[in-house]
């Protein structure tokens, strides 16, 4: 029953985040372990997406955002000397709404590698095929690589976005409600995909779908009003939560 603990990937220590005078995250502490799926759940506006975005510094885009505390990635402070572009290369992100760029499928995937200096056509071809295969969408798209990425279905677009994130060979993938805009079949496909990717990547996912968190994640963090109320094994959270607030939320008694 007992396994060796997995190595630590990301550690959040005593983190506070403010938008102007509004405090969006309060004293957050969290460990994300390698090759695990960590799910963030909680009502809208509880800060779960905010924390997710802080993990690859997407919050930098918001002028009024201010952070105290520390986030370390493999022991390195990501708000310290680390180069943002380098961080985002290692920590990829997939968004709520599928957001393929208005260009061809091929160019979408190649955009990331090109950004990081890969120019050789042969190498790019290989990366595109590999990424699409890893995202389990190669068979569906291999004949449409030159077609617009906007012409494929929503579910395919989202898997394309996952492939695009995989193309820069990240170690961590952050997903912000990746299936909230998709139909059940596409959702299942993406959940299957994530379960497969888990062996090679570390995954953090924000979800409003409690069932999804229960189905795919190893750890679950429950957020409320900017605080982590409870963080632990998913099975434990969903069978015997320690905190009354967690219980009330996941059983639908409030929120």
């Amino acid at each position, binding site marked *: 029953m007992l396994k060796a603990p997995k190595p630590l990937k990301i550690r959040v220590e005593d983190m506070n985040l403010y938008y102007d005078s509004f405090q969006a995250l309060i004293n957050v502490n969290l460990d994300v372990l390698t090759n695990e799926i960590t799910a963030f759940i909680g009502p809208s506006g509880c800060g779960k997406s905010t924390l997710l975005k802080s993990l690859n510094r997407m919050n930098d885009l918001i002028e009024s955002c201010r952070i105290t505390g520390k986030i370390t990635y493999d022991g390195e402070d990501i708000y310290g000397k680390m180069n943002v572009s380098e961080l985002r290369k290692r920590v990829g992100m997939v968004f709520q709404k599928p957001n393929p760029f208005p260009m061809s499928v091929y160019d979408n995937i190649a955009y990331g590698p090109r950004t990081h200096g890969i120019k050789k056509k042969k190498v790019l071809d290989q990366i595109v095929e590999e990424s699409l295969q890893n995202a389990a969408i190669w068979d569906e798209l291999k004949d449409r690589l030159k077609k617009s990425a906007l012409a494929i279905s929503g579910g395919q677009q989202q898997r394309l976005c996952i492939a695009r994130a995989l193309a820069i060979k990240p170690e961590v993938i952050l997903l912000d409600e990746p299936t909230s805009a998709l139909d059940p079949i596409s959702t299942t496909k993406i959940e299957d995909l994530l379960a497969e990717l888990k062996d090679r990547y570390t995954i953090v996912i924000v979800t409003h779908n*409690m*069932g999804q968190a*229960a189905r795919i994640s190893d750890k679950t963090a429950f957020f409320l009003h900017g605080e982590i109320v409870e963080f632990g094994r998913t*099975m*434990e959270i*969903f*069978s*015997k*939560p320690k905190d009354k607030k*967690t*219980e009330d939320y*996941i*059983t*639908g*008694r*409030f929120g």
Partner: protein
Amino acid sequence: MRNKFDRELQKLHDDVVQMSTFIETTIDKTMSAFKTNDYALAREVCENDDIADELELKVERRSLRILLSQQPVARDLRTISTALKMISDMERICDQAKNIAGIILRFEGHELIKKPDSILLLSEKCVHMVNKSVEAFLNNDLELARAVMTMDDEVDTIYHNIHDNVSVLVTQNPNNVMQAVDFVMMAKFLERIADHAVNIAEWVEFNITGEHKNKVLL
């Protein structure tokens, strides 16, 4: 906010309560039939077995429907799995009571040897355990559930005594070996009832703590 869900859970609870009341009266009837040689009562117990099956089915149906429609988690999940597991133990208790009633009916028209005191003692203990486990469930009483679990040792000892002393019974009245064997079987059925009572108590514990026999299930 979740009115329909809560109503369903309440109905499920009511169904389980109905079943537990039913097993309590069944065991009471069986035992008083035994004590007073009331064969009509014993026959009634045998015939009422269908009711237990129906009640079990009712709880199973409702539980599965809630699982399907509400995808319960946390306390709700524990409550429903407890109901599902507990109901089959309750149904088994009724089966055992029916078996005992069957043995009683075999005595009809025969001269009875003296009923061993230990059987009466055993039956009292078993009825007590069933009552208490049901009470523990109704009141969500962890202490009581754990108490029921410890009572089982006593029942086992009494049962083993009866088993070992069967030879004494046979020597008392060599013409009634069959009755002596029936008493041992009855004791076995009672011991099984006690085991089911313990099972119920264990599920009550799971319902409250999330742990079953000191093991984390999820």
